């Protein structure tokens, strides 16, 4: 494991190419590649590597967190997040701005992603995958927990998987927010 991690850190592009190859539908390789992708995405959030996080999305990709699971689209609907890459860039630039006051206090997150189910794999290699997440956030001395389900629509590119749509159904989406969410969950 340690060896793999070291190697992949040294050559991320090579690793991404390796995981991006087309595989048999629902095969073990797809399962493995998708899992690695989800774990890496979570890692980017926890390490506050925002630009790399945004780069995981296709140019027309969307990050969407509906306020309740019954919503089938973000178009014309209230949404906690409904961000294309441009809006994600605004959010990223905001939190990186030296005068983003709410970013001053120490804060960090820890994501755990699991229950990864490859829902379907299309002939062109696109994959729909469901997973569950649990995120613990520390802000100053306060701990918050957010948990729920991810649904990723992934497409394969030369650089590996890219996200066409990430839907986030958060179990506590409807609960009152003690403070707010500053970045993607």
């Amino acid at each position, binding site marked *: 494991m340690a060896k793999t991690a070291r190697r992949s850190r040294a050559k991320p592009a090579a690793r991404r190419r390796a995981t991006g190859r087309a595989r048999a539908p629902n095969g073990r390789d797809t399962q493995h590649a998708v899992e690695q992708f989800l774990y890496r995405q979570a890692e980017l959030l926890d390490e506050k590597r925002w630009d790399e996080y945004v780069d995981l999305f296709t140019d027309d990709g969307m990050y969407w*967190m509906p*306020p*309740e699971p019954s919503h089938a689209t973000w178009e*014309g*609907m*209230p*949404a*906690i*997040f*409904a961000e294309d890459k*441009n*809006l994600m*860039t*605004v*959010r*990223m*630039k*905001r*939190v990186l*701005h*030296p*005068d*983003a*006051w*709410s970013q*001053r*206090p120490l804060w960090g997150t820890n994501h755990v992603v699991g229950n990864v189910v490859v829902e379907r794999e299309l002939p062109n290699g696109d994959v729909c995958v469901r997973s569950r997440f649990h995120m613990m956030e520390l802000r100053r001395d306060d701990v918050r927990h957010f948990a729920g389900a991810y649904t990723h629509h992934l497409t394969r590119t030369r650089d590996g998987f890219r996200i066409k749509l990430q839907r986030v159904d958060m179990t506590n989406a409807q*609960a*009152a*927010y*003690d*403070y*707010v*969410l*500053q970045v993607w969950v």
Partner: protein
Amino acid sequence: MLHERVPSLGKYVEPDRVRREVYTDPAIFDLEMERIHERFWIYCGHESQVPKAGDYYAVQIGRQPMLMVRANDGRVNVLYNRCPHRGNMMCGDRSGNAGDFFRCSYHAWTFHHDGRLRSIPMQESGYAGTRWGKDNPDCSMKRAARVENYRGFVFASLAPDGPTLAEFLGESRVAFDDMCDRAPEGEVEIVPNCFRVIQRSNWKIFLENQLDALHPSVTHQSTGRAAHEVEKIIAAKAKKGEAPLSYHMLSAFATVTIDKWDGFQTLNYPNGHCVLTGYMGLRPQDPDTLAYDKIMIEAYGRKRFEEIIGVNIHHVLIYPGLSVQSPLQQLRAVRPLGVDRTLTEIWHFRLKGAPEAIYRRSLAYYNLVNSPSTLVNADDLENFWKCHQGLASDGGDWVSFGRHMGRDLERDGRVETAPNCGTSEAPMRNQMKAWAQYMTAER
């Protein structure tokens, strides 16, 4: 102890400053709930939240858990969420439908939608000869003393006497007139989603921020600059050279600089209500707006249309619990949870008869500015928390509201800020003046 303070409470407020205990003393908080929130008109919700008979919505008025419920006769009632039998909460959900009547989950007492007792199990065998039955008003769910509706917006007062809703609102009713008049059908309806955000600070800190025209370019500059950068990139790529209006809504926080905010004006009314004019008065000439204008002119005629669309409001504050952005059809209801905890309930409305595109434009603001992932309020909430922390300390006794003091223009009972004094702290002075009147009033 609480009432020992009362005679001197007036001394906590001076024209340009306020004692810090006003924000941090739990005893003063309790007295505020008693003398302000549980006495004057508090916003419960919009009637379209409860369209069908039996529909209810839970709402907190001061410290009282209440239910707004639609009855069979179409009326909207506001009841204490409490069974008169043993005190059980009647509805445990935030909203739902009670069916033909309320039924307590503990001993099955049932009640009509207006709170009247409908039935008690074992009435004959169990209560014969007792005082417990339909003739006893103590066997019905208690109703809010007064309920009134202004253009679909339902308010309740827990005190049997006092000003009517219209008298209480006074000029601040422009918030609802402006919102409803912008609908071709003259009405709005709720978008069925409530964003709820808690801030760790006293409720007044939120209200004082709403019309503070100096803070946006300081507090929100990171978002404004970020949006402006991306707005320019999109515009450079776009054929018509324009980014969606939602980017402008955000970038204005940076592009409208401190000196420009002074160009706006606040109008301060009795009872603590205030209006901030300007800013959103801009009228784009895109096809969506023109299509909307056409429908509006058909509905109202050109003269009335120009009046409606010319109403120049950014924000209306209805003291002590409502912040309304009428041109964007959204409002925030303020529910104090404790001296240092405040819940805001954030709603968006649809203009009846307006094109979908107009709804989506204001929806973008609702999602970007007022949702729990807000690109704007995150920094406000940080300030509110820090404010409350500072006020809880012994580092000073007073909060000052002195900006542009002495330059306000008083006419016909309202206080207008002078030209180029838009960032005046007149709204805070006005709110605290009302606060002191409420808190020291004899019943």
